[in-house]
């Protein structure tokens, strides 16, 4: 297998939910599945923590042009480790596009389902707090 093919396959592997990823907490209590959100911006903070990791980005509103800081909840750091993330996967300044679901309380928070790195186009499964299975 070529190195390129191997990288591609591992990347595809990361797209799919690893079997051991953490489904912590009550999704329905925190997030509104009917409110998807997709935002792009530079990372201001990456919290490599439990019970969930958090990514904060400065995202620009396409309509108003205003920049706001948004927080995205990911899976637990322990679960992310098992699916290939490390504490160094993101750093402040990295531009990412995050797709997820907005918080019910209307604040600038959401859970993240996928995180795409602008620099490489690499898409990472974030797997935060999916409905319990």
């Amino acid at each position, binding site marked *: 297998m070529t190195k390129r093919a191997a990288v591609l*396959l*591992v990347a*595809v*592997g*990361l*797209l*799919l939910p*690893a*079997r*051991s*990823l*953490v*489904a*912590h*907490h*009550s*999704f*329905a*209590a*925190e997030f509104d599945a009917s409110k998807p959100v997709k935002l792009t911006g530079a990372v201001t903070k990456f*919290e490599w*923590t*439990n*019970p*969930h990791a*958090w990514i904060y980005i400065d995202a620009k509103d396409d309509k108003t042009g205003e920049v706001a800081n948004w927080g995205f*909840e990911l899976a*637990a750091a*322990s*679960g992310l*480790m*098992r*699916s*290939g*993330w*490390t504490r160094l996967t993101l750093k402040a300044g990295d531009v990412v596009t995050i797709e997820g679901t907005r*918080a*019910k*309380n209307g*604040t600038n*928070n959401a859970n993240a389902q996928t995180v795409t790195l602008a620099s490489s186009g690499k898409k990472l499964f974030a797997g935060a707090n999916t*409905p*319990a*299975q």
Partner: protein
Amino acid sequence: MKRPFTVLMSAVIVAALSSSLSAQWPLVPKPGVPKGPDGKPNLSAPTPRTSDGKPDLSGIWMRSDRRPGNQGPDQPPIATFGDIGANFKGGLPYRPMALDLVKKRAGGLDNPDALCLPQGPLEYHLDPQPREIIQLPRKIVIVYESNYGIRTIYTDGRALPKQGEPQPYWHGYSVGRWEGDTLVVQSNNFRGALTGKPGDGWLDGKGDPFTDALTLTERFRRVNFGQLQIDVTIDDPKAYTRPFTVRVEQEIVADGSEMIEFICHENQQFLKLTGRER
């Protein structure tokens, strides 16, 4: 079309293995793992045994994601993390108070898992995070990675205490004995839903309740090197009209990966996101 199919299948295989391929934690191969001709762990090898001839349940176990379609007709329905009655024909035998509680708990605000409190007994068995069974001569300790639960099962021949003595515990009081190759664990003296405190008396993510009247019977059977089967009987006359049994299946972690630290209160945002704490 053959090539795309091959690539797709390779991707699926890599995806299935991604947890071991990409784990960012030192892999230290464990001694005693049987190997097949290909050098990989032979998960269908015979059940390992301790020096006294009993099956050795020790190891790190992940819940199995095998789906109930493969289940035999005379076996207990498979429980899921979110709903232990998901595969229970006709639903669980709730008493009215239990059904009322399930309705009140919809949304999961008081789920002990979400509150970083000790999980319910079936949540611990079915959480996607692993648990480690440490089998000692006179007791068995189970360490759950999720919410860092630690449970002791006494296997020194002591009797199960009376309900109410000692004071109820989050994990109850557990004693185990061997029936042939099956470890039968009975537990009582749980903190139950009737305390009214958040997190008390949840069997699963949905909030199926248990009360302080619960006697839990778990039958652990290590089918072979790689598989653990736990049949869990809920006998709680305050919450259910009759005892019922569900099955949990777990698989050994044989790639040398370990439990990972999980400090649940490190960055707990649940109360803020649900409007109960600023």
